[in-house]
């Protein structure tokens, strides 16, 4: 069974969804992410959809589910890189991604996640204040 890779970046998890993801793969991703958030105590999930040329109701619901489950596990979700054609189509479709924050790209998405970290979060994940302020996050396992 294939899995979409989940990268860990400090207190956050990054998922890059590339072209056509069939339903089964989407369900697997949902499960994998929920597990990883639990395991790592991650405080944020960044979903990069800049390569997705289409988002239908199924994928929309998947994103909504991920955001919902993350919130329960005390993490924020940010979706980044939505293409204009996709955004226009979603609006026409009537799909609202409520409860899902969005940003233009990974960098801005990270910034958004960092801003939403609370004092206790920072302590919890063992970051010192300097690090968070100076965007000192690196990819680590």
């Amino acid at each position, binding site marked *: 069974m294939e899995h979409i890779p989940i990268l860990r970046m400090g207190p956050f998890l990054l998922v890059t969804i590339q072209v056509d993801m069939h339903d089964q793969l989407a369900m697997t991703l949902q499960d994998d992410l929920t597990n990883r958030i639990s395991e790592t105590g991650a405080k944020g999930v960044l979903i990069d959809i800049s390569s997705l040329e289409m988002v239908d109701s199924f994928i929309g619901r998947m994103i909504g589910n991920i955001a919902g489950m993350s919130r329960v596990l005390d993490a924020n979700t940010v979706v980044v890189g939505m293409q*204009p054609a996709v955004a*226009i189509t979603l609006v026409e479709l009537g799909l609202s991604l409520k409860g899902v924050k969005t940003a233009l790209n990974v960098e*801005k998405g990270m910034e958004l996640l960092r801003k939403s970290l609370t004092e206790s979060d920072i302590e919890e994940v063992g970051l010192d204040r300097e690090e968070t302020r100076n965007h000192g996050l690196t990819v680590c396992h």
Partner: protein
Amino acid sequence: MERMKSNDQFEMIVQKYWEGILGDWVEEQLSSTGTRKELFSKEELRTQSKEFILLFQEAISAGDLDPYQPHWGKVRDFLSNLSRSRGENGFSPTETATFVFSIKKPLMARLGKEINNDARLLFEELSRVSNLIDKLGLFTTEVYQKTREEVIRRQQDELMELSTPVVKLWSGVLALPMIGTLDSNRTQTVLEALLQKIVETEAEIAIVDITGVPTVDTLVAQHLIKTVTAARLMGAECIISGIRPQIAQTIVHLGVDLGDIITKATLADALAVALQRRGLRVVAVQAPRALQTEASF
């Protein structure tokens, strides 16, 4: 009886001598300044003229000489196509109408040759033919005119698209000043272009200014709202500025719900909000030392 006879005469003459008339007509076109010789070969011109003359002949045998009657349909279609094609290819009105008007001389010359013993009849025939050709010529000119109007409208649309550029006001702040009457198609195209620019420049705020828009209808309002919603999904915020009192009234009357879309009366106000959101503030520059005499601290 005289009338019937004269129509038959004209018809018979054209039927008998059409090839000669065709030859003379083509020569007439080639020698007139109203023909774009560089765009036609003699052969092409001859083919086109021959087609017309045969249709013309059919029409005059089928009934009277009123070119707006049904039996002149094929002739009108032919002239419409010709006119349209010339209109789209930038021919002048004269160059287009010359095709028709230049047939007068060879037709009249032939009539003069064949009706040489009845001055009254000849005069009547010449009048009738002249009348007919004039009407056909005018028809051609009208189609040409309509075609040119369509070309101009198309060019106007393209120009409008070019004249609604997306402007960078500040780092991360774009502005789209919309000017003129908006139609659904144009609005859609322009707003899609805005979203594309947002991605390209990574601008988090886009100001759509409609100061220069006299009226807004439901469709345009909906496009604006959809664009703002789409921009949000992408991670950017849109501010609509320049909403004049009349437009505000229209929006309320149409029952359009702007929800929580940020609106500002002027582009300046919108810019202030945008800068604020970017965490920026505009401050006065300190006066140079020399002038800082009494009025300090």
